[in-house]
């Protein structure tokens, strides 16, 4: 492995591909050397815009590039075939895949097996684990500041399809709200509380027949923890997607979301932290600071050969839970 400059390629030049590629290009110790994009028109423009970056239409054309790591930022249904190709052809063994790991648990498990077989660092892009408010929440929960959690209510809302009329030309992403946004809340819950099982779930179509636009889920953990998830992309006044939790413990209540964290202890003491209070600065700001932290963490893990969280193995649990939610939905 080239320890001077890590050679990285990005597959898929949609909004997440652009974001990661741009951040990777400024990360110290990284050289963005190749892009893979299916659209012929976009590829033509990429070749003109980036004279020093190799642009291809198929990941197998990466095989002679001696890559140290690859980012897979294609639409979710193609994560499995793309990653499988990369592993099978021996193109790279360090893989970052945007969330969710796969479009179902079966494919997620197969990717876990491939990752284990080929080794390397593998990570899934649940970037909210790098949001300063959720990092602080995790720290407080691990420190048992509110005691062992008894229950939680989580939400993941956006206004992306609020007031979109039925049968309009607008199409919701076929992956549905659970894999688009709900997965972030599920991943954070797994990170905060450990594993749990789905009790009940309800899915709703709002925009068009068959679209998965909102979900209500109840879960239970082996230690008795009870949780609820409410997710939707048809909610008013959520211009930016927002994820949040209200967590109750014997010693207090914590409310945390993308913007701030509020802690109310049983004795009445109240604390509140905004991003401003939690050291939210990064070396290069694009999109949200958590994207830079996430990429920096992955790159450092590849350089130092560390294991990372969330790995494929950990993230596959989100895919398992989403499959369970769909199977139990009424």
């Amino acid at each position, binding site marked *: 492995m080239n320890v001077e400059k890590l050679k990285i390629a990005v597959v898929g030049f949609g909004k997440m591909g652009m974001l990661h590629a741009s951040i990777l290009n400024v990360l110290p110790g990284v050289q963005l050397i190749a892009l893979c994009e299916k659209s012929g028109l976009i590829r033509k423009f990429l070749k003109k815009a980036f004279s020093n970056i190799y642009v291809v239409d198929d990941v197998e054309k990466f095989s002679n590039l001696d890559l140290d790591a690859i980012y897979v930022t294609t639409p979710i249904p193609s994560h499995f075939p793309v990653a499988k190709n990369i592993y099978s052809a021996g193109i790279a063994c360090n893989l970052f895949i945007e969330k969710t790991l796969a479009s179902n648990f079966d494919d997620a498990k197969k990717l876990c097996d491939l990752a284990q077989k080929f080794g390397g660092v593998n990570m899934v892009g649940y970037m909210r684990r790098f949001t300063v408010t959720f990092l602080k929440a995790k720290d407080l929960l691990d420190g048992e500041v509110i005691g062992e959690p008894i229950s939680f209510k989580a939400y993941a809302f956006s206004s992306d399809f609020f007031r979109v009329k039925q049968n309009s030309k607008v199409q919701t992403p076929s992956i549905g709200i659970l894999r688009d946004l709900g997965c972030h809340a599920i991943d954070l819950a797994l990170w905060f509380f450990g594993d749990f099982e789905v009790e009940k779930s309800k899915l709703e179509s709002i925009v068009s027949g068959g679209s998965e636009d909102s979900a209500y889920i109840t879960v239970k953990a082996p230690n008795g923890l009870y949780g609820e998830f409410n997710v939707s992309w048809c909610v008013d006044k959520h211009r930016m997607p927002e994820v949040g939790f209200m967590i109750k413990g014997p010693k207090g209540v914590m409310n945390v979301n993308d913007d701030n964290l509020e802690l109310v202890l049983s004795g009445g003491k109240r604390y509140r932290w905004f991003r401003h209070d939690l050291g939210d600065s990064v070396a290069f700001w*694009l999109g949200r600071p958590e994207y830079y932290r996430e990429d920096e963490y992955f790159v450092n893990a590849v350089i130092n050969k560390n294991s990372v969280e969330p790995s494929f193995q950990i993230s596959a649990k989100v895919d398992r839970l989403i499959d369970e939610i769909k199977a139990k939905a009424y």
Partner: protein
Amino acid sequence: MIRQEKVLLVGDNPFHGISHLSQERSRVRGDAPTDPEYAAKLIQISLDNGANGFMFSVSDKTLSILNILRNNGTLNSLGLYAIVPYAYEYVRLSGKVGGISGLAKKVVKEIALSGSFNAMATGLKGVLKTDLNSLVKTYLAYEISRIKSSAGKHAKLDSVLLHQLITDMCLGFGLDWVFRLYVDFMLKAGLEPGFNTGNLALLVKKFRELGINLEKVLIAAPLNKAGFQMVPTKKECENALTELPKPNVLAISILAAGYLKPLEAIDYIAGLPNIKGVAVGVSKETQACETFRLLKEKLVKA
């Protein structure tokens, strides 16, 4: 200290329902600031109390605000600082129209429907020859024509700024040709080229490396006492200001999204070098009145 330019701009974030402190805060504000009629009223009150310009992302909403201001005669006394493209709206839209390819098709269709023969011809050439320069120029001309058609030909369009997301993505990718093309295009159009960035120190360094004349460009970047969104550090952003040849920075997020009290926030800005002005969003009449009165008192009269 700001003495000559005295640019005190009303920012448009509240008019889009944006609060960088928390989305909860923008929900608490209610719908009033997002109503174009009320937004125009807030701008008028701000003008009466010391503001002299409006900084806005070019969107249907802000264009309708310009229309109202034009019809009530306010626009002629107002300096306009437009930000293009309204990148977050395009990001949202891309999810609804089939990704980046779908988005590109939609924008091309909008340009075609705008009725500008020149824009259509240049744009078509750009697509056929995959000529990025032609496409960028076509798009910029289209955005400027949208502003002018809403604001009227007598409106004072002082600067057109490249949106933060685009500026910083170009910075990340090292797309130096975009910066050069943008500066040349705007100067030829008789406008001050502007760049909205979240990476002030890096951008200033980049422009120095590229030999871009920093006297001819405007930069809008977060600057506040709390160091909120000052990347990579508050100190490095302050140092970048000292390296500029003249006051050409518009300070944004000066209240750190409502985290700071106006007085302490403005005192901090007043002590910074090379600040051309500030842009501050307001969502209530009293706030518009008090904020711009204070800004005028502290930044202009000092």
